[in-house]
């Protein structure tokens, strides 16, 4: 059987399939604890990535007719993306492990021949201490790139650095999935 088809970049003109409402995962009327996730995507020069598609997937709450569990946000001229969604709870890990609440995030953009996948956890959640992925990353500075910080009443903030920055800012942990 043939192997999986090769990836190619989403390019700078993917906005032809952009529907801004997709960034609001509550738009079909799902009930639950609403949160926002915002942040900036930044390149190795410290410049904003202004043409990215940021995709969010969450395994909890489970997908149903009222909750797509998937969203897509453009980045704006400051590299900023924003999602409105429901706060996820913990989900099972492999074996008997439990995973701390998290979002799966994929960055697609010009200059990325294949998507870059990362996660956003919630800083301060006690389950983070035993999360299999977080606890596998020994470097605390790198681990911190996966933690969204609280911002306002129901807001969470996470910046995504595609490379180490010009002032030695830490590159986001990206995942080999």
């Amino acid at each position, binding site marked *: 059987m*043939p192997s999986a088809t090769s990836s190619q970049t989403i390019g700078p003109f993917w906005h032809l399939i952009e529907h801004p409402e997709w960034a609001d995962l509550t738009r079909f009327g799902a009930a639950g604890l609403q949160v926002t996730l915002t942040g900036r995507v930044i390149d190795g020069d410290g410049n904003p990535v202004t043409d990215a598609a940021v995709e969010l997937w969450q395994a909890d709450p489970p997908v149903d007719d009222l909750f797509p569990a998937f969203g897509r946000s453009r980045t704006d001229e400051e590299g900023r993306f924003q999602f409105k969604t429901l706060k996820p709870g913990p989900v099972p890990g492999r074996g008997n492990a439990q995973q701390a609440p998290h979002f799966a995030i994929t960055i697609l953009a010009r200059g990325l021949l294949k998507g870059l996948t990362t996660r956003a956890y919630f800083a301060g959640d006690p389950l983070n201490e035993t999360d299999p992925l977080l606890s*596998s990353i020994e470097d605390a500075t790198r681990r911190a790139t996966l933690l969204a910080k609280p911002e306002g009443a129901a807001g969470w903030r996470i910046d995504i650095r595609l*490379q180490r920055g010009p002032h030695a800012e830490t590159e986001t942990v990206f995942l080999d999935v």
Partner: protein
Amino acid sequence: METTPFRAYQPGTQPPYDAPAYGSTHKRHPQERLVRLPHTITEISGPRFTAAQFPPIPDLSVVAGKAALGERIIVHGRITDEDGRPIPHTIVEIWQANASGRYQHPADQHAAPTDPNFRGEGRVYTDAEGWYRFTSIKPGAYPWRNHDNAWRPNHIHFSFFGSGFAQRLVTQMYFPGDPLLELDPIFLSVPDESARNRLVCRLDMTVTEAEWALGYRWDVVLRGRAATPMEG
């Protein structure tokens, strides 16, 4: 609920993040080693799109009853996984330049005409056997600023979701016999030549409609499942 992780990609079939001939990768590719993540429910589950919430757009060649300029085409093909199992009822997103090589996009400043009758976006679903089909216009080649006198080959952008978030695929379909392919750093970024050439569709006279449109076939393969469930 499916509980089996996806298998690893075959070496050489996927492009690298750092592709020096493609300038935009320079400041956008990670320099640290990616952290390997054995698949969990987060990676093996994925979104479900329905035609009710995300209505199909199967014809890009007409807007409000008026036909776009250019060479009308029908593109079809089958989506399977690496074990040959069809991917049924999955969404396929499509976008492309018009016949002149211009995107209906504010950032596209190529001095070629826009076409108000060309709809640059499409969206279809596979049937129960994994087949998809849509009608469009053959996209034109266009210049880009990667290097001196750089031109992209004719291509259509595709986005696939499959059945799990780790099966997601965004790629481009090319046309047979395009002399720009061997000059294109994006196409050439795939190291394995046979994998690269599978991005090229082929003329298909079985769907070509007489006096109407040329048919092309392009099959797509999404990652297969691994041999053992993740609890195993």
